[in-house]
């Protein structure tokens, strides 16, 4: 009897359906087994119900393109009747199923557990919940269902060949408990320890010194961006710290016990837990088969050659190599790299399902390896050569449109590569730290941000080596005798439909024609020298910003539209009526005070403005108002960025409302009013015609800007999501974040880094070169204009 006939009409319960293997599995069952049904366990999303998640995360994947075209218009209806979603989570006891979910599980015939956290660097507590306890939880649910008269007759648990650990020599298909070389670790103790570690680390992360360090780092990164944002960032850093400690603890524990990483380690203990709780000798036995694939990569043929989901283990390494970032990767050229195409794994699982829980020779809990290393080995050296040749023919291109030549690999040991990469990372990170404290703007700030990008890439490369090095250096061989025995029982028709014999893989063809083209296509890399990707993105962002659909454009003033600060304005105004001698004294005084102002400004802009504006105490209102016009025309306008001014006007032409938010004084801003629909600025109180030096209200800076913007939008019935914010400094982060379309203008190094990371539009606006300019912002050096009577239309 053919597999399809044997399984026809059966109902499958599948966990991990949104994953790489799970998606392919569901597709295959629906496409190749007549009248079969699938119940997929899906984690409830925050917004969508499980049905929507299935539609979005499974059915919309191009994996289903083939089935979609085969069924045509019938696809939706047919799939809707055969694919059911049930909300649940393998990291919760009882799988988090409600009564209906349990009933649905009870109605299934075969349960396939493929859910796992495949990330090799998951935090240990998470890996323990999912990988270690997950299989036993699924088995528990199956046992319960069977006890209540349910139909599940077979649990297939997907594991990994690497549960055998990093030891040398051959591994045969048997339970770990039957393997003398496998260390019997007390899995229950590991569970307790991982959970406790999480709690301990949460506590440790809250120690005052550590909290102060997070706060300091948040400030280093974002500057005076406001309490709220700094707090959010510090909390993120704390979370990250806990996470990193847990990752570190996991890999340390795994490596001490002889596994390459926490993934293989927790999967191994997961098998043990499964068998201990529900194996044949347990109190609640469940018929179980275990399938252990090696490294799963893109499909050989089904549903189409090259199909892959997610960016997995080998892909980022290959792309990093092709981009010239990863110059060397450890590994022995004679070593075997055990890769298996996803469709072979799927076919093997289907065949195991068709055979049923009883293995050959009556094995109670049969284990099947799905691996290529013994029957059709791919040597690491050969793989590297194939990759090298392929990128020689199809190079990637750098941002200037030049082809990147790929390095020759020298197959160094892991230690050397790690050392080199660590040095590079350290060097770049100190260079970057240094740059952050230099008040760069414009292109220099971009360079700093680029350096940071390169550092991230270098760090990632180091991460790959640390994570995956073990897999290219492993000298274990995974025998597939039982798999081949199963293969031997198949009829010819099944062999062609559900092929899982690794011998069919023609490695050079698979690598060059199937896998690499698919990886590069999905890698978002430049594969031709034409037009820079960066420019396209920039143009696209700018077009979005200048779309008629936007509502509101809000601008910061200093260094966003004009290369000047409140200090310059003050100096100009204060010095304009001075004699030459006084001016010299004034300059000296100002230079002396500059460092103090600068440091105050860095710490808190609000404090800085408050204390700085005291200097206006006693200034005659009328005179200042008059002088401010000359300040604008003679000092500020020549320092303006024409492209910025043009941008404000462009927004107005598009019908957007334009708003200026600045900490500058109202008298100074007055001449700029006609440029905007509205202006929010600082205001000083006055008494008997002179300024008091005190601000009438809190100045519109930092976080306050975000609130102002929010209030303004609400009052005018505008949507913040449709708003654009322009600013130059990380202290405006709150305002930038509040707007749907943030634009960093001539950003300082911190903002440049943030803008790059978040993909914001960055504009480089410069002063017009033909303007008059002076080294020092002193007024009165040039002849002043007259005809004051015309100002402000009071002729």
């Amino acid at each position, binding site marked *: 009897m053919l597999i399809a006939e044997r399984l026809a009409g059966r109902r499958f319960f599948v966990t991990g359906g949104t994953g790489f293997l799970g998606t392919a599995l569901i597709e295959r069952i629906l496409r190749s087994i007549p009248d079969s049904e699938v119940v997929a366990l899906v984690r409830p999303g925050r917004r969508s119900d499980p049905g929507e998640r299935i539609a979005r995360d499974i059915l919309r994947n191009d994996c289903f393109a083939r089935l979609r075209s085969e069924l045509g218009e019938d696809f939706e209806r047919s799939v809707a009747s055969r694919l059911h979603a049930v909300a649940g989570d393998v990291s919760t006891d009882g799988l988090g199923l409600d009564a209906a979910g349990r009933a649905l599980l009870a109605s299934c015939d075969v349960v396939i557990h493929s859910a796992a956290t495949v990330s090799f660097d998951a935090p240990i507590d998470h890996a323990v919940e999912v990988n270690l306890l997950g299989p036993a939880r699924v088995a528990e649910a199956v046992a319960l269902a069977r006890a209540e008269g349910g139909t599940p007759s077979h649990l297939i648990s997907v594991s990994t060949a690497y549960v055998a650990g990093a030891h040398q020599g051959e591994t045969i298909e048997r339970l770990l408990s039957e393997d003398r070389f496998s260390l019997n670790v007390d899995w229950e103790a590991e569970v307790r320890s991982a959970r406790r570690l999480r709690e301990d680390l949460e506590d440790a992360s809250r120690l005052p010194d550590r909290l102060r360090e997070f706060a300091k780092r948040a400030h280093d990164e974002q500057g005076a961006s406001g309490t709220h944002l700094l707090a959010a960032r510090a909390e993120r850093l704390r979370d990250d710290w806990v996470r990193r400690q847990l990752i570190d603890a996991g890999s340390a524990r795994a490596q001490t016990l002889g596994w390459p990483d926490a993934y293989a380690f927790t999967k191994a203990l997961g098998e043990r837990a499964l068998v201990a709780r529900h194996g044949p000798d347990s109190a609640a036995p469940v018929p179980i088969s275990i399938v252990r694939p090696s490294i799963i990569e893109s499909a050989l043929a089904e549903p189409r050659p090259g199909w892959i989901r997610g960016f997995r283990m080998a892909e980022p390494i290959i792309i990093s190599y092709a981009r010239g970032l990863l110059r060397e990767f450890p590994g022995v050229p004679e070593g075997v790299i055990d890769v298996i195409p996803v469709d072979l794994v799927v076919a093997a699982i289907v065949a195991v399902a068709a055979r049923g829980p009883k293995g050959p020779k009556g094995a109670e809990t049969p284990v099947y390896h799905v691996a290529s290393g013994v029957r059709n080995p791919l040597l690491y050296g050969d793989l590297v050569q194939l990759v090298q040749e392929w990128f020689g023919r199809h190079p990637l291109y750098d941002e200037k449109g030049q082809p990147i030549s790929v390095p020759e690999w020298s197959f160094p040991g892991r230690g050397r590569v790690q050392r080199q990469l660590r040095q590079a990372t350290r060097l770049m990170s100190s260079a970057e730290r240094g740059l952050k404290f230099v008040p760069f703007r414009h292109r220099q700030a971009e360079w700093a941000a680029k350096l940071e990008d390169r550092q991230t890439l270098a760090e990632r490369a180091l991460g790959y080596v640390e994570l995956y090095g073990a897999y290219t250096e492993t000298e274990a061989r995974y025998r597939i005798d039982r798999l081949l025995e199963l293969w031997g029982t198949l009829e010819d028709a099944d062999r062609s439909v559900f092929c899982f014999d690794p011998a069919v893989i023609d490695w050079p063809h698979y690598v060059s024609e199937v896998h690499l083209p698919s990886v590069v296509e999905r890698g978002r890399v430049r594969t031709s020298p034409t037009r820079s990707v960066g420019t396209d993105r920039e143009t696209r962002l700018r077009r979005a910003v200048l779309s008629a659909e936007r509502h509101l454009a809000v601008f910061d003033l200093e260094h966003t539209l004009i290369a000047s600060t409140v200090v310059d304005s003050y100096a100009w105004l204060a010095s304009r009526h001075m004699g030459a001698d006084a001016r010299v004294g004034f300059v000296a005084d100002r230079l002396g005070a500059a460092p103090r102002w600068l440091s105050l400004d860095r710490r808190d802009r609000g404090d800085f403005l408050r204390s700085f504006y005291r200097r206006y105490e006693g200034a005659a209102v009328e005179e200042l108002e008059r002088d401010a*016009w000359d300040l*604008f*025309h*003679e000092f500020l*306008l*020549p320092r*303006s960025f*024409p*492209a910025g*001014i*043009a941008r404000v*006007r462009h927004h107005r032409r598009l019908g957007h409302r334009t708003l200026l938010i600045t900490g500058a004084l109202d008298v100074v801003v007055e*001449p700029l009013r*006609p*440029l905007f629909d509205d202006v929010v600025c600082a205001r000083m109180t006055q008494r008997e015609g002179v300024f008091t030096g005190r601000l009438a209200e809190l100045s519109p800076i930092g976080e306050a800007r975000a609130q102002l913007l929010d209030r303004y939008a609400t009052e005018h019935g505008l949507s913040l999501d449709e708003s654009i914010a322009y600013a130059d400094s990380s202290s405006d982060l709150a305002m930038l974040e509040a707007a749907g379309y943030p634009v960093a203008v001539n950003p300082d190094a911190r903002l440049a880094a943030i803008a790059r990371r978040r993909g914001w539009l960055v504009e480089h606006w410069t*002063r*017009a*070169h*033909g*303007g*008059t*300019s002076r080294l020092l912002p002193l007024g009165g050096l*040039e*002849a*002043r*204009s*007259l*005809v004051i*009577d*015309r*100002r402000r239309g009071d*002729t």
Partner: protein
Amino acid sequence: MSPRPGFVLEVDGSTPPTLFWDGEGFTLERLPEGSRIIYAPEPLDALKDPVGAIRHALAHPIGDSEPLAALLRPGMRLTICFDDVSLPLPPMERPDVRQMVIEEVLDLAAAAGVDDVVLVAALALHRRMTEAELRHALGDRIYEAFAPHGLLTQHDAEDPENLVHLGRTAEGEDVEINRRAAESDLIVYVNISLVAMDGGHKSVATGLASYRSLRHHHNPHTMRHSRSFMHAPSSELHSSNWRMGRLIKESGVKVFQIETTLNTDTFPSQFAFLQRREWEWTLKDRVTYAATAKALDTVPAKLSRQVFHSIRAPHAMTSVQAGEVEATHELALASVWRQQGVVVEGQSDILTMGLPYICPYNVNSIMNPILVACLGLGYFFNMYRGKPLVRPGGVLIMQHPTRPDFNPAYHPSYIDFYEQVLSETTDPNEMHKLFEESFATDPWYVHLYRTGHAYHGVHPFYMWYWCAHALEHLGRVIVLGGDPGAVRRMGFSPASTMADALEMAKDVVGPSPSLTHLHTPPILMADVQ
């Protein structure tokens, strides 16, 4: 020794290299043998007693006018208008002729008991003058007496309260001018006729007008039909201004016109070589040239700009006449021709010129690419009577760095014109149709024009229209040493050496072309026969 007239030199083997202005610098170029170089006449002698001459002119008016003293009476409203900072070029050494004339006018007014006197700078759509510029043009005494009381004003073409519409000419042209001037009992207009286009009815009809009025003659059509606008009988610009001027007169506005002319003594003694003929350079001239060129090469651009813009010309008055507008202008025009006219035989295939650092619209500022085009194709090209120096379809080669640099306070709308208009079209008609209105009425430009020192939003369009006749006439414009991006943006061709430029020109005019070099400044008017 009386000054020598203008001169056309034919280049031969013994001709030394020729001076080419190059913005804020200059080069020496060797022109092909057989080329012609047109040299300006030497500066005419100054009037011996300028103040006496002014008094004489005011007392002995020309045409249908009484002497100024007879026109003044107590209780009258008197408005004295004067040409703005665009004249003369370069700004002249103190005292400026405007100061000398206005002081005499004010003396007569005081003597007659006139106490309602207002001074108006006739800006049209130019930028407002700075205090320093006003003090320079009027002298400190006049400035101190009028400015603090608000009696020294600058014409505001965007102040509806201060404009009055006097009517339409037979051609349908709106005449709208400064209200204070129009409603005065007498306008005394103090002009400097630096070139043949200045003065006459243009003084009031243009200098005191609004955009609504100016657009009737500052447009591509008028400029294409002014051949050249420096020669009144062939100038549509002139005709339109005259129609308006006559309407102003008919509507009862009384103008007493005072026109002055200056000699072409353009550069102070340390730059004397700039107005000498190269083969007559003395050792001192050659040394100064070499030293200056070297210095300009080494100092930053901003510094050399400062040096050039601090040049004050030793211009001296060659004539002053006053009275009825048209008759006075005729006489002034004769003096302009006497100083500037050079007879030239026939046209050539190629016209070359070196453009200096200054034109009427960048005094104390930088010359942006649009002003470069305007100076070369608008002003220098049009310095002719009869027919252009270059044949139809010929090539103009002008030297200027043409950097895309702008003064954001003086020329804000130029920046947008360069970025938004020239990137779309360089055709004067097309931009007139598509863009002029929006620039002219833009509230931000109006704001900057009225409260700051910005040229009016529409001004860059006018500068481009100034080029309309040349653009239509020429087969190609090559900018020698120009920034390639800026030059191409304007629809011209960049060339890096004179040899390249000549090769490029031959593509258009054929092999062995004839070439004429306009050796200016000093200003000259070619009478092409």
